């Protein structure tokens, strides 16, 4: 049972959270202009690394806010927690190129 630090409520058991998979997958701004392959990739294809992974969690049994976690999928060590609209620490080498928000 992992201990996930919700940025709003503090650390809680993972059973309080819902998982949202890979973070920073933006919905295409103009879906109509995407090809079938591009749409398939948006729908179904996600990174699945063994190691640090920027992912989304939602505190379902708490504040119900979505937020981001960088977690090592092999060790379950949580490396960073940050809010929607924020970006992972570039030093962790995960997720999109660090776009300052």
């Amino acid at each position, binding site marked *: *049972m*992992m201990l996930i630090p919700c940025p709003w409520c503090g650390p809680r*058991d*993972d*059973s309080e959270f*819902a*998982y949202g*998979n890979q973070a920073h997958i933006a919905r295409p701004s103009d879906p109509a202009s995407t090809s*079938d*392959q591009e749409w*398939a*990739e948006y*729908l*179904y*294809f*996600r*990174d*699945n*690394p*063994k190691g640090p*992974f920027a*992912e989304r969690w939602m505190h379902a049994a708490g504040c119900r806010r979505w937020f981001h976690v960088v977690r090592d*999928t*092999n*060790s*379950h060590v949580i490396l960073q927690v940050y809010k929607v609209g924020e970006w992972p620490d570039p030093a962790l080498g995960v997720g999109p190129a660090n776009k300052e928000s």
Partner: protein
Amino acid sequence: MAEAGRRRGPTGKPRYSILALARNALSYHENWQAAWRSPEPKPSYDAIVVGGGGHGLATAYYLASVHGIRNVAVLEKGWIGGGNTGRNTTIIRSNYLWDESAAIYEHALKLWEGLSQELNFNLMFSQRGVITLAHSEHELKEMRRRVEAIRLNGIDTEVLSTADVKKLVPIINTDQGIRHPVMGGFIQRRGGTARHDAVAWGYARAADDLGVDIIQNCEVTGFLKDGNGAIEGVETSRGTIRSKRIGCVAAGHSAVLADLAGFKLPIQARPLQALVSEPIKPVIDTVVMSNAVHMYISQSDKGELVLGAGTDSYNSYAQRGSLNIIEHQLAAACELYPIVSRLRVLRTWGGIVDTCPDASPIVSRTPVDGLYFNCGWGTGGFKATPGSGHVFADLMARDRPNPVAAPFTLERFKGGYLIDEHGAAGVAH
């Protein structure tokens, strides 16, 4: 038993039999041969199978036995059968909803029937029946849909009343006042269980017998491609090995391999936990699955109750999950089988399952010519082992979709024709 002493295959291993046991007993079992060799990898092969689980070893066996491609290596990063082959709850059935799924799982089930004899290795395939329970009006309706589809696909299935279930599973609680009462179910009598490790060992021994090199402790670290981007070989922890035909069958690590090969798969690795109780005298003869309460149960030949549950919700390669899954699963066990609460959990463990968006597998060519992937079996791979290996060997040998495997192409995610088994598979396998 006349054939007991017959030799076969290029390596000339003696066959297993009661007579062989008796003969070896006279020499204190000191003269048994290795079930498979431990060869050094050759510089190149006609085909390479990456992943030495049941599916990979079966693929190699069928490449050699059906397609005559014997210059084959199976590369396993650890020990053969050490992934999900050795971590699952060993349930075998083919009672799937969709035609495409029914076809591939039934293909597998037909191969299971007779596999011990074909491989000359007792896989303890035991057709003790698989019961799926229904706990609500809604589930009864869903069950009817599945049963009709299964029946019309020519697969055995039988509807059970609550009383029928009780007769087959005397320890089950059929009190209609409980939160999820047993309102009926259906059984596939040809379904059952097998000894999971034996499946890997049996295929390994038979493949080795046909000349396949099984190379353990050999991790693939990269793929070699030629100027046109076609596959040429693999880099491994034991050096470069070349082949123009490579099949990856690495279950939980498929996404990692695809990453090395330069493309993505629509796959997520999730923990799947299971557990066994201490051994007790037989109390349950069939496999019983329940989607509503997320629990399935059987009893091994050793006497352990084998309990499975649903996957954890998050991505992980850690082969461990969260305790609340186990707690819920055991609450369901106590609720449905009230005698089990004083029995004891002996061992819990986790595997990594590769789950697809539609809960159906991928058996497919890839963007890289000569590179094939067989993955995405999720929580249901063990039962498919022989069929999966059989159709994947066919795909690798002929480079064209096998008719049974054709629907399970990567292309389906682009066009939208998914084979959505979520409802049909539930959690239970």
